């Protein structure tokens, strides 16, 4: 017997964090404008020391003001989506669950668009206006996952095929709503439509929103993490978990709300990026096993790595043009989804 210890948990997370750091450095370096590693290091240290004014070169501007915020945004978005995916998989006892596949991301997108439309009609202060989109996205996500959950329920049990079908149909329906809203109320805006449907990190977001996102991620992911060992038992079923001392209704509501918050936060700044929440937890499970005490932090770090890599590829692969990051994740994620589906059927 080799139960998980805190030391092993921290060691593994340390390796992943180091990997994330390497990926971030490479991502900062890559792009239309080449940057030297030396210049990169010098500028980053200046930023950390609060001497941003000392960076005068255009290169520094590109790295610090354009690439770095985008990468940091990607880290929070990737971590949020992956933790949400791992949580939905445990909560719904379905290895194919993912915010995007279940339509939760589309629901969040609809919520965010509705919030934007409402915001245009209310004369709010800029700080408040910035928060209304994430809140709308959270509400959209929470309502959608509740709807999909009840669609997938039969005779008091969750039927996994019905759940998936219900989610996919919901996603399709909500995508149509997004199209409708974007082309009527929000003013015809094709780029905006692609943003919400496919997911994109190229839209610059205010710095205050990044802080808000990071804070929201820590709170919601932290809340889920307090139930990590309960989620391990939930994998065997709600009844079994209850008999092993899990307060099932409490865990269900905590994870349901927190995963909706995570999805809402991510979608409100990056649109509906697909398959990260599916792909990353599965890869992490293959490497580290299904123990959620390890899986959740590993998924957060792995999700951050995955999005930064995917977004760097999206930026550079067809340079000087750009792909939406959602296109990259779907190219990797959709085949994996089919593989997992086939393996489950055999």
């Amino acid at each position, binding site marked *: 017997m080799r139960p998980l210890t805190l030391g092993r948990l921290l060691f593994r997370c340390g390796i992943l964090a180091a990997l994330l750091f390497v990926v971030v450095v490479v991502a900062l370096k890559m792009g239309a404008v080449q940057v030297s590693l030396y210049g990169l290091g010098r500028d980053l240290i200046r930023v950390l020391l609060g001497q941003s004014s000392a960076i005068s070169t255009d290169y520094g501007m590109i790295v610090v003001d354009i690439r770095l915020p985008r990468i940091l945004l990607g880290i929070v978005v990737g971590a949020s989506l992956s933790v949400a995916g791992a949580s939905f998989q445990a909560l719904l006892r379905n290895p194919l669950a993912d915010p995007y596949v279940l339509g939760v991301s589309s629901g969040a997108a609809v919520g965010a668009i509705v919030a934007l439309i409402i915001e245009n009609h209310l004369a709010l202060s800029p700080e408040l206006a910035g928060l209304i989109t994430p809140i709308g996205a959270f509400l959209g996500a929470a309502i959608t996952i509740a709807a999909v959950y009840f669609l997938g329920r039969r005779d008091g049990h969750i039927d996994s095929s019905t759940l998936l079908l219900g989610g996919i149909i919901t996603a399709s329906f909500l995508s149509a709503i997004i199209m409708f809203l974007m082309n009527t109320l929000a003013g015809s805006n094709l780029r905006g439509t692609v943003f919400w449907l496919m997911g994109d990190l190229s839209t610059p977001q205010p710095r205050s929103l990044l802080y808000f996102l990071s804070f929201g991620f820590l709170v919601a992911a932290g809340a889920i993490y307090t139930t990590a060992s309960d989620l391990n038992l939930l994998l065997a079923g709600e009844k079994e978990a209850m*008999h092993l001392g899990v307060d099932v209704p409490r865990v269900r509501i905590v994870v349901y709300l927190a995963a909706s918050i995570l999805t809402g936060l991510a979608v409100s700044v990056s649109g509906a990026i697909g398959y990260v929440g599916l792909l990353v937890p599965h890869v992490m499970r293959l490497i580290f096993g299904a123990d959620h005490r390890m899986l959740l932090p590993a998924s957060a770090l792995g999700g951050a790595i995955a999005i930064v890599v995917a977004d760097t590829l999206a930026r550079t692969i067809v340079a000087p043009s750009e792909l939406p990051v959602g296109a990259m994740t779907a190219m990797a994620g959709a085949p994996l989804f089919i593989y997992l589906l086939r393996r489950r059927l055999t």
Partner: protein
Amino acid sequence: MSIPLRTPIPSSEQARSASDVRLSVEQVSYAYAPNPSQAPLFTLEALSFHAKPGEIVAILGPNASGKSTLLKLISGALEPLSGRIFLNGFVTHSLPPRARAQRIALVQQESRLLFPSRAWEFVLQGRHPYGSGLRFETQNDVIIATNALTQVGANHLSDRWMDKISGGEKQRVILARALAQQPLLLLLDEPTLHLDIGAQVDLLHNLRRLAAENRYTVVVVTHELNLAGEYADQVVLLQKGKCLRVGPPASVFQRELLEQVFQAPLSVEMTSSGRPRVTLFSNT
């Protein structure tokens, strides 16, 4: 098979209640209706029985007689319509999940795992109700889990994957997880289902020994008349939600009664050990 005798897993509440009644089911009834406005589809009429530490109670009856419902009521998962179930003076249904899991372990018909785990991980889950926070397992937990595996003779399975072992082996690991909970009350829902005859006898033999060694009160739902007759101290005989008789096997196993309940011609004879043995005849 021979299983070496091990030190029993002690439990905090055992000492002070070793001699008196541990489980008492008092005039418990239940009605199941899909919604409150309709007449109930199934009712369990009021029944009572009491069990001491170290006793095995078998719940017998044909399908849809209310066996599993009674077990769920005892486990605290269902709230009785009337009456109460006490475990060492606590109402089982009112115990919070953790406290309940420290006192009652339930071995259910096997459920599919979403992601495979190793046998030792599975057994360590039994320590969940004792952990706090992130519940990193302590050395003590590992000792208790290892001990539990040893008690069911499944130490060699520790590193095997749960989906790669036989039904009988899996049943032992599931039992070991229940033992790792260090319960006062061990509940089993048709544990012999899917097991071959050798494994069935083995399991019941294990239960008998564990009940005696660890002073568990064991309640087992089963279809196996002869295993119940051989191993149980008390039998609760149910039919269509009615409790027909409670008592030692020798008094419950009456030919006319069993024939009427199970709708099959049979004979009952006493073995040299004073245990009843049932033989079924074909109808032709």
